[in-house]
């Protein structure tokens, strides 16, 4: 081979090697992503299933302390606790007092409400017997789902041998069933894993993002338009530009401290609310949107501005009729990306108190609420086994929203953006 051929061969080889390295890097990243997703999905999937115990309830008026012909209001206001206890005790007629207590703990603490709601749906059942589905306790739920070992010494598990025998009997009688866990989406947080849901977190996150959008979008767009189209290019605007870029790099927890120190301490806005959370996050989103908006304003070719100016449009008209509308797709997709970032933000929200235990669903941004990422953090901290799957399920919901928003950003960008030849 001549020297030239050797040289050429070397060049081809290095090109091949480079391609190989690239492929390796991509597969490496993909493998990690797959492991990550697999772990979350395999753990979290069971949270969408709920374990229920089918029990026969005899709606005995005496146990409910009701008169002969009770009105609907009487039925509503009756105390169902004794009836519920009796129902659970009926699972094993030979149970002593301790064992009856254990039977009670096999279902969630809202078992009396569940029995009551069943009756309220069909008031004719009074005095009759009907089978009712009761939410199983989280420990039983985990055993049913196979997440919790049962072949360990009794004092190491949270389910007693007695409960297991009753459980096995219920399984044999096909009294334990599994259903789609609607309450995971409709209930707020709870100390009991089997009852905990993400409704408060979803609504809280929604309000937070809404507040964040309404504050950061107009401010950022106006700032970007002024800086890009009207501001003179001098030292002051350069300084502002540098600072906006720096702001985008500030750790989010610093914004949390700002929210705590100013919004809560000085302005005394209500603690733990999505209003404060939204304002705090909007500080974080502002630089992201400003940078995106400026980039898309810059991408509008100067020839369009010249065309409008030469037609006798004022600077304001040129900006509002041409430049801004043309930059909107880019600005909007930047905004959505910024909001997606804000949606996944945890640290600042913890600092302004959105980490509090909230077991109600917020009705407005002024109500105390949770948010999705903070809910993940809260549940991950909980000791109960039942919360493990809830953490992953909550992450799945959060990831779902994030993917949806990023997809939307892509669609906005590709569908509405003007292509310049």
């Amino acid at each position, binding site marked *: 081979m001549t020297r030239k051929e050797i040289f050429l061969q070397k060049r081809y080889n290095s090109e091949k090697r480079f391609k190989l390295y690239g492929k390796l890097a991509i597969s490496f990243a993909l493998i990690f992503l797959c492991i990550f997703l697999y772990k979350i999905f395999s753990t979290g999937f069971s949270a969408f299933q709920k374990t229920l115990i089918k029990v026969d309830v005899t709606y005995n008026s005496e146990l409910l302390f009701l008169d002969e012909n009770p009105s609907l209001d009487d039925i509503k206001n009756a105390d169902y606790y004794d009836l519920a206890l009796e129902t659970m005790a009926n699972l094993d007629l030979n149970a002593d007092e301790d064992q009856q207590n254990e039977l009670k703990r096999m279902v969630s603490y809202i078992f009396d409400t569940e029995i009551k709601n069943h009756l309220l749906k069909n008031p004719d059942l009074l005095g009759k017997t009907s089978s009712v589905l009761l939410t199983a306790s989280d420990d039983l739920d985990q055993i049913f789902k196979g997440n919790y070992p049962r072949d360990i010494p009794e004092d190491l598990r949270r389910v007693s041998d007695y409960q297991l025998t009753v459980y096995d009997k219920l399984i044999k009688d096909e009294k334990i069933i599994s259903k789609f866990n609607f309450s995971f989406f409709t209930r707020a947080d709870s100390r009991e894993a089997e009852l905990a849901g993400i409704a408060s977190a979803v609504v809280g996150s929604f309000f937070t993002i809404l507040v964040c959008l309404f504050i950061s979008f107009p401010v950022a767009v106006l700032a970007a338009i002024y800086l890009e189209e009207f501001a003179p290019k001098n030292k002051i605007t350069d300084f502002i530009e540098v600072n906006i870029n720096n702001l985008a790099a500030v750790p989010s927890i610093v914004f949390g401290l700002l929210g705590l120190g100013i919004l809560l301490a000085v302005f005394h806005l209500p603690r733990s609310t999505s209003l404060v959370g939204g304002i705090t996050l909007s500080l974080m989103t502002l630089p992201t949107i400003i940078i995106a908006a400026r980039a898309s304003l810059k991408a509008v*070719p100067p020839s369009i501005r010249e065309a409008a100016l030469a037609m006798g*449009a004022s600077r304001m008209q040129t900006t509002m*009729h041409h430049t801004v509308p043309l930059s909107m797709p880019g600005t909007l997709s930047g905004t959505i990306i910024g909001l997606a970032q804000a949606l996944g933000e945890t640290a600042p929200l913890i600092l302004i108190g959105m980490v509090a235990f909230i077991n109600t669903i917020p009705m407005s941004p002024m109500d105390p609420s949770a948010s999705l990422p903070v809910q993940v953090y809260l549940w991950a901290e909980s000791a109960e086994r039942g919360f493990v799957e809830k953490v992953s399920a909550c992450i799945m919901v959060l990831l779902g929203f994030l993917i949806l928003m990023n997809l939307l950003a892509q669609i906005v960008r590709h569908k509405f953006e003007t292509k310049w030849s």
Partner: protein
Amino acid sequence: MKKINAKNVNVSYGSKQALFDINIDIEQNEVTALIGPSGCGKSTFLRCLNRMNDVIDICKVTGEIFINDFNILDKKCDVVRLREKIGMVFQKPNPFPKTIYENIAYGPTIHGMTQSKEEMDEIVELSLKKAALWNEVKDRLHEVGTGLSGGQQQRLCIARAISVSPEVILMDEPCSALDPIATAQIEELIDELKNEHTIIIVTHSMAQAARVSQNTGFFHLGNLIEFGSTDKIFKNPENQKTQDYITGRFG
């Protein structure tokens, strides 16, 4: 009759002077071509005439430019009114990414020239007819202007410029991005437009200058070297540099 009269126009970008003491008289309803090598200042001068240089922060223009005996470099001159009277067509076709109709209606709309949709339709049709584009686009007025061919886009830009009936039309190398056929169409159009408008065209092509213009100015390094009738400049130039340039010895 003189339409434009420039006196001692100096332009500088920061510390770099781009034009030196330009004095020029431009005749009404004639085509004036400005020629010269790249960077000689011919486009800069053209952009002084509708104050497009205003948008460049570091650009400073001194001297006097009288259009209809009114100094447009005066602070009192309103650029919006000025640009309504002085239209411009750019090097690269730059229609708005809107429909053909909207492209043309934009000028009349912002200057409040019409009261009804019928009037606007009339202006759009007339402008497109004057720009010799009507027959090609009359069935697709509501399609985007950027979907047209390069030559059609440039004629659309000309139609847009004449929609507000300007007295003067400035053309900054309007054919440099077009093929020969489209160029020929535009040149034909320029010849017709001069009956109603005064046209100043900057061009790189000396052949084009010779074809379309009645007067020609030759710029070199920011100076107006020679100005006179096109015939004289091309056949019998006074200045040696002009002679060298038009015979292709430099530039």
